[in-house]
């Protein structure tokens, strides 16, 4: 049985797919993180986002995170789905779903996964405003 589901997708993400993958009869707690596009960054209105990924390495780094989760936590299954390409307002950028026998572990594991993803996975996000664009987090 495959316990890890990693995907980079150029279509709308659906958290139900990640949850369906991780659901299993040994686990009582599933925690899912959904990251969406916010309308305002520092007071400026975002028109849309563009995600660019170094795809093979992004898949590799997300797989590392998933393996770490299965090692560090009593987790049974994990799904990490990340969007690439153009994303409109309120669109889903990332879905991470983790199933554990007990809920406390599922919360800790899911939070570790998204925190680590934001540090290590080679994906870049450009915010497009009415009057310009910016690569998020590029500058201090």
């Amino acid at each position, binding site marked *: 049985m495959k316990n890890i589901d990693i995907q980079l997708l150029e279509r709308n993400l659906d958290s139900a797919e990640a949850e369906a993958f991780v659901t299993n009869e040994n686990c009582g707690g599933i925690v899912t993180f959904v*990251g969406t596009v916010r309308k305002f960054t520092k007071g400026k209105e975002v028109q849309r986002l563009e995600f660019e990924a170094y795809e093979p390495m992004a898949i590799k780094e997300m797989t590392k995170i998933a393996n770490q989760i299965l090692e560090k936590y009593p987790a049974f299954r994990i799904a990490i789905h990340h969007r690439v390409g153009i994303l409109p307002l309120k669109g889903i*950028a990332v879905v991470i779903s983790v199933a554990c026998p007990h809920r406390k572990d599922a919360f800790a594991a899911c939070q570790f996964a998204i925190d680590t993803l934001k540090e290590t996975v080679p994906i870049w996000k450009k915010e497009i405003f009415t009057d310009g664009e910016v690569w998020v987090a590029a500058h201090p």
Partner: protein
Amino acid sequence: MNIKIVAFGIATDILKARELEINIKDGATVEDVKHYLKATYPPFEKLASLSLAVGEEYRADDYIITKNQEVVIIPPVAGG
């Protein structure tokens, strides 16, 4: 030796290219390539971080690059 540089995110804007070839001394390290990039393209100095990947893995500053290897510039990531 010649090495191929591949850029992503803001690095593409700084290089004004997705890929380019540079000539650097034999046995150059990741640190040497970072120095080269920052000296040749000053905007790299201003980034919050700058990492390089070889073979789809982050490499430490003392990693030695060999001829014809592809070096990927990883500016600050912003997934999620």
